[in-house]
């Protein structure tokens, strides 16, 4: 069986957590992601920027009730990358069985 290489952008705990969370949501606030991943704001911000640079997520900054709000949503490229990552994981698991 062919071994598919794991996407290095997704094969990192926090980035994978963010993408896995966003795959099931239309969009989510930065604070929501921070709460669900138990990450620090600084670390999360860095990882979100990496996902954004790879075009896996879309980040929108806006104001809500005079407070800044950062909204994140997964892009079609991000969905595709996530699906490929899961397929690669499955193929890897089959090989190691």
């Amino acid at each position, binding site marked *: 069986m062919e071994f598919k290489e794991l996407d290095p952008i997704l094969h990192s*705990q*926090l980035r994978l957590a963010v993408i*896995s969370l966003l795959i099931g*949501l239309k969009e989510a606030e930065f604070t929501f992601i921070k709460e*669900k991943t138990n990450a620090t704001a600084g670390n999360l911000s860095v*990882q979100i920027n990496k996902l954004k640079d790879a075009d896996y997520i879309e980040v929108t900054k806006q104001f809500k009730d005079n407070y800044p709000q950062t909204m994140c949503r997964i892009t079609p490229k991000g969905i595709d990358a996530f699906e490929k990552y899961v397929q690669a994981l499955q193929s890897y*698991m089959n090989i190691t069985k």
Partner: protein
Amino acid sequence: MEQPFNEQSSLQLIESMINKAKNSFSESGTLYLLWGVVIFICSLTQFFADRFNYENANYIWLLTWIVAIYQVFYLSRRSKKEKAKTYAAEMIKYVWICFACCLFLCIYVLIYKKAYDSIMPVILVMYGMPTFLTGTIIKFRSLIVGGISCWTLSIVSILLPNQYQTLCVCAAVVIAWIIPGYLFHLKYKTEQAS
């Protein structure tokens, strides 16, 4: 958290995050209870008014306009508090918008055509649609049962004399909205406490 990790833990992490996203949808049941109680009061008042030949009872239905205005404020406040939007919540939102438009148009058409006898059975058919769909989207059995009950009661109502049709509406809102609303409320309280 930057360092790579193994494939088994990747799968576990994906599963746990997907579950967290799934659980972020929560319904307090407030609007189900509110609308259920209001429609119940209006229908029951209408029933007794018809029974005792009191003609001005139709005005009780103006209560629904007050609730509709309150709902706009309630939903806008709730939307401001929401930190994440689920696909289920989006779908449900459009199902209920579609219901409100169809209900309004159906009632308008039936009144225009002076088909007053058909208003309550049609309202029951309409009540069943969003209730059933919401139940299937979020897999909430009580709403599915409620939706089917509305449709059954709409058939029952056409077999009954006009004035008893409002009692079918009373029964429908208890089964389709008040009971699920109460169950949502209990579930929501438990989630908030944990």
